[in-house]
């Protein structure tokens, strides 16, 4: 090499390491220690697990021998649960689609609209499914209607959150192309954004449906219809082999939905 080495310039100063991680870890350790302590603790004790483990043996035995003759009696509330879940998901996800565009930075150009939508949705999401069910049972009485309404709001919260974040990450190129061709906002959203997020939307909607089937157990407890009511009754009477049947049925249902959604997604993407 004949070329001279370039003149040495000053080196950049190494930025100081952030203290966030060590501080966070310390806080975590302190909280864990407090939780286990005598005064402030939550009474967590592994001894109970070992001492009382035998007590559950009878229950476990009954759970492991499901009472199959109980199956016909579960048919009607089970179908009701599926209907509540489907209606809740269809209505909730239909509302969630347009709302998602108002909750994404990419498609809601008005900062005010964006802020209001996001705030309202934070509140919707902060309320758990069982609380929605309680609210609607109080408002419209016992039955399937409060169950459906509860799931509608629950699904709007979940799907808008997931979908609006997906919209935040779309390729902005097609949106620029649409704007350059003189498209209005609706046209741009429909043809430059929606095709990009449609497979995600379908996946999120199926996920919402699956969540609804699971939520049916708590809906029943507060009188909002479906299999949960029966599950709760059987549990109260300690009919563990009947409880077992319902749990197995729910398990199979969730697995079936999962299989169907995998197939659907494969075809869509």
């Amino acid at each position, binding site marked *: 090499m004949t070329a001279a080495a370039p003149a040495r310039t000053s080196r950049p100063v190494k930025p100081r390491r952030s203290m966030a991680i060590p501080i966070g870890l310390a806080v975590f350790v302190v909280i864990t220690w407090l939780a286990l302590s005598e005064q402030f603790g939550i009474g967590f004790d592994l001894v109970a697990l070992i001492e009382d483990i035998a007590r559950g043996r009878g229950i476990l035995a009954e759970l492991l021998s499901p009472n199959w003759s109980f199956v016909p009696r579960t048919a009607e509330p089970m179908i009701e649960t599926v209907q509540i879940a489907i209606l809740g998901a269809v209505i909730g996800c239909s509302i969630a689609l347009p709302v998602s565009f108002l909750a994404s930075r990419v498609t809601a150009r008005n900062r005010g609209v964006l802020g209001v939508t996001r705030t309202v949705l934070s509140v919707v999401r902060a309320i758990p499914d069982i609380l929605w069910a309680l609210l609607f049972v109080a408002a419209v009485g016992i039955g399937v209607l409060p169950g459906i309404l509860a799931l509608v709001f629950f699904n709007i919260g979940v799907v808008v959150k997931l979908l609006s974040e997906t919209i935040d990450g779309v390729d902005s190129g097609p949106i620029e192309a649409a704007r*350059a061709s003189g498209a209005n906002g609706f*046209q741009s959203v429909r043809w430059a954004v929606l095709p990009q997020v449609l497979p995600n939307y379908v996946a999120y909607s199926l996920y919402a449906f699956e969540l609804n089937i699971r939520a049916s157990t708590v809906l029943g407890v507060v009188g909002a219809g479906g299999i949960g009511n029966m599950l709760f009754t059987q549990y109260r009477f300690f009919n563990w082999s009947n409880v077992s049947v319902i749990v197995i049925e729910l398990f199979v249902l969730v697995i079936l939905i999962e299989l169907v959604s995998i197939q659907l997604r494969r075809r869509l993407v």
Partner: protein
Amino acid sequence: MIRFENASVVYPGGVHALKNLTLEIPDGQMMVIVGLSGAGKSTMIRAINGLVRLTEGEVTIDGQSVSKASGRQLREIRSRIGMIFQTFNLVNRTTVLNNVLMGRFHNTSTLRSLMGWYRPEDVEIAMQALERVDIVEKAYTRASNLSGGQQQRVGIARALAQEPKILLADEPVASLDPPTSHVVMRDLQHINRELGITTIVNLHFLDLAKRYGERIIGLRAGELVYDGTADQADENVFRDIYGRSLTADDILEAAIA
């Protein structure tokens, strides 16, 4: 005619992308803008359809101000200006035809566009645009299944479907290989000559600029440093525009065509 009058753009970060540009582009001209990246080529092209707003000065098209237009008026101006992009900017998950039909938005009501009920005459215009770039047989193929060159031709068809008076092309061949680049540049040349559409192209390859440009302008750091015919633009001119000696990277093919 497009007119820039003392046009300046300062981006929020303080970057002065366009400095006091005054320029006229007559109807039907094929004009190439050359310059290094960051010289203001993209800014200048986007000022014509208002994707970038001027901070000072004015851009007018046939006497109508782009810089002062907004809302419906701006969309109306944009509908008469087609644009093609370096990265094609197609919607990959839908068909070629749906992409090209985006060029018919200005002629389609919001309800019709939401439902996808395009009028048969609009579909026919889209098909003719695809025919012009020789790719009509791919109309119902998903855009993601096309090669880069094919995607850029769909991008041209989308712009043509607007039946524009002006065509803007922002580095249209920067993502393509040399033979495909020539196909795309020839398409643009034919469109300019046969349809009489004013065509403004950003390029950074000197040989392509000289070969396809009728007029060449050079930008350096947001300022107009050259304005002349392609014949007059020799190596010294480019050296001046680039502010440095030329390298092999500035030329698409080994030798200047």
